[in-house]
């Protein structure tokens, strides 16, 4: 094994470690921001990690009794970890990046969502079913927006290769279609991370957690971890795509800058979540439809403009 592949494998590990460690911390930021907006002190920043550990130590109850129900949380977490492993670190491909491309990324992200649906549909709980149908409708509307954000990169660079698509376009080359896409990415952010006003599938006051209602203990912890990491990915995505790398030559400096920016995105997520009520599913769909049309326009602009 030559030194470069060794570094590349090191990057896989780094990415995994960073996401696994920081995802709960960033979730903690959201909770703390919300608390401050509400004149509360809020929980410790590491509270989400404590929650996970506590859940992992509990009895694993198989509420439904069929295999898909037990497998769903594993598949969800595994798929999002795969995403993390193929994700380039601050513009540098990991050892696994060459084996995947932009489409693989989208597939893997969708797989996680599908796992949530499988888990919910494997039982007969009406709250889980309503939650899952909401989750599905949301996915159908929101995934294309993610797709088009990446498609813009594909069009600009003429490549499907992940590092190129994510980091290949200098900010100036995006033009007005890129600007529109940044706005779309911001407006879709809360939907990507499933926070207010778009925490419709879980909707505590209506559906008591929706798709996850039958899950508890370690199985639920896996789902929670999946959601935290997914959330971190979606917060990191606009930073990777739209904010040019520092190119300081030092990986660590580039990375730290990117992580700080991601933390900033989480600040925004927390603020938005704390200042909005939950939308109804029909209202959310109208909203997504608007974003979708806008995104389509931006892609068309990139093609012909």
């Amino acid at each position: 094994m030559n030194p470069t592949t060794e570094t590349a494998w090191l990057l896989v590990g780094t990415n995994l470690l960073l996401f696994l460690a920081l995802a709960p911390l960033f979730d903690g930021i959201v909770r703390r921001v919300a608390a401050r907006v509400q004149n509360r002190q809020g929980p410790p920043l590491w509270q989400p990690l404590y929650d996970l550990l506590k859940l992992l130590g509990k009895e694993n109850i198989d509420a439904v009794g069929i295999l898909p129900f037990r497998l769903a949380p594993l598949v969800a977490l595994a798929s999002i970890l795969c995403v993390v492993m193929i994700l380039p670190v601050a513009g540098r491909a990991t050892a696994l990046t060459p084996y995947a491309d932009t489409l693989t990324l989208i597939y893997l992200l969708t797989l996680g969502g599908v796992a949530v649906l499988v888990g919910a549909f494997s039982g007969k709980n009406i709250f889980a079913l309503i939650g899952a149908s909401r989750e599905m409708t949301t996915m159908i509307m929101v995934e294309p927006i993610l797709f088009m954000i990446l498609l813009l990169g594909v069009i600009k660079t003429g490549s499907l290769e992940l590092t190129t698509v994510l980091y290949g376009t200098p900010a100036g080359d995006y033009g007005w279609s890129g600007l529109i896409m940044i706005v779309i990415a911001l407006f879709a952010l809360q939907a990507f991370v499933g926070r207010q006003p778009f925490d419709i599938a879980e909707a505590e006051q209506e559906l008591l957690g929706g798709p996850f209602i039958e899950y508890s203990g370690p199985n639920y912890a896996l789902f929670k971890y999946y959601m935290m990491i997914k959330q971190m990915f979606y917060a990191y995505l606009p930073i990777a795509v739209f904010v040019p790398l520092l190119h300081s030559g030092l990986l660590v400096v580039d990375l730290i800058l990117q992580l700080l920016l991601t933390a900033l995105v989480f600040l925004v997520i927390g603020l938005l979540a704390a200042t909005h009520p939950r939308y109804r599913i029909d209202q959310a769909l109208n909203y997504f439809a608007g974003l979708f049309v806008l995104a389509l326009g931006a892609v068309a602009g990139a093609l012909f403009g």
Partner: protein
Amino acid sequence: MRKELEAQLAAQLRDEVVCVEKTDQRTIFIDVKREAIRRAARIVTEAGGRYMCGVGYDNIARDGTLGMVHTFSMDRNDHFICVRTKVPAIDPVMESITPDLPSAGWSEREFMDMLGMQFTNHPKPKRLVLADDWPAGIYPLRKEVPYDLVPPGADDVAYQLDEAPPGTKIVPIGPFHPSLHEPEHFAVYVDGETIKGCDYRGFMTHRGIEKLCQTQVSYNEVPFIAERICGICGSVHATAFSQAVESAGGIKIPRRAEYIRTLMLEIERIHSHLLWLGVAGHLIGFDTVFMQAWRVREQLMWLCERLTGNRKTYGMVLIGGVRRDITPEIADDIRAVVKKIEEELRVIHRAIEKDSSIHKRTKGVGTITKEETIAWGLIGPVARARGVDIDARRDHPYAAYNDMKFDVPVLTDCDVWSTLVVRVLETYEAIRIIHQVLDKMPAGPIFVELKDKIPALRHAITTVEAPRGESTHYVITGEDNRPDRWRVRAPTYTNLQAVPLMLLNEQFGDFPIIMGSIDPCFSCTDRVAVIDLQSGKASSMTRRELEFLSREQLHRA
């Protein structure tokens, strides 16, 4: 008023009217034979009566009958009309008035359960109050049934839900559900996400407070039990009961006591509306409104702690007056606190007034028309948000409200948003009333000793405008220094009956806020206490733990 009504009744019902009497300035009793009850109710309704509630009582020991009173309010000329009839206990059948007055549905069902009455042509003669496994033939409110009877339970019985409309699924809301806060069960029939119907099974925490007070305690203890009917509008119930007994016994209480009652009622209204605002925020998933409204509310609870020793459940009201006086120092304290609350509420009000996402969730949601509101006899902010201009404080003034200047906010958008605005505006009015009370309060005693015995078998009715709408109390005085019959009709009892109508064809996601928009108080409806008082434990904590727990409390010192 009495003359005209009597003429009307005599013309239409002839000798089926037994008597029409006016017992005080406000109350007219009409005794009719049982055959005429439905027609009499119709005549009173046509004369402008708004149905309040039914009161059934056991009179078997005296003349072998069960009594039934349908009470109405004439809101425009300050009268209560009580249409009274009796049926022999061996054949307790009378005609139902529910086909004409839907809001009488529960009152009649309640006395089917509790007294064994039967109402012909009742549209939904299902069990309402009693548990599903309560044996048939035992009617708890009859005098022969002991207050502590515990019949054996049964496992093989369950409430039969109304048939679901075709093509719908049933979503069970409750007994435990985050948007309920108290154990009740709604079966919501949904088609996709659209609500197509709803059945309600409540009264899961019915503990028979009425029976207890009719058999075990004396007049002066009842106000404290009444206060524990509700964790939020306790003073309302204590005041309403005391007023009913004072009215029946012809007791005149000192003016200063009436002012202090007014003060407590308005403090309670501010507390309740702020609490509701927070809950409403939570129900649409907007926890910042929740936290901020409750932060503002908290100072009022501290104030009440200084004022009465308790954050809630003030224990101020007695028959004959109140227990604690308001000193000039505490008056200044109250002024300062409500002034601060008003300032902070205005900040919240401004923030939500123009918030388009809150509008999205509340405007045009839970809409029913003004006509439907009147037909269902809805009350309180729920009615005032739908253009129905009623408020017991103005229409049937009690305590010191005839000295107060205040507006009754009425909106006409008929949706959840207008109930929110009505409640916020009412809070400002409550603060206005509190300032007036403190400025105008006359000097003098706060309590009058009861010299004579309260005469037995007098009927009296009072209403007090609770934060959720009028609370109606009906008292029949008894012989053993306790009421012979005491009937409590909390506002939720009326408003809850129209919730299925508000839910119809709405989105399932709006269920919590539509339900919440009536500010439901199930404990009032079921008539039990829901307060959990913690005590003693604090003394065993270390100072640091205490400090942590009461961080905010320390800040205010």
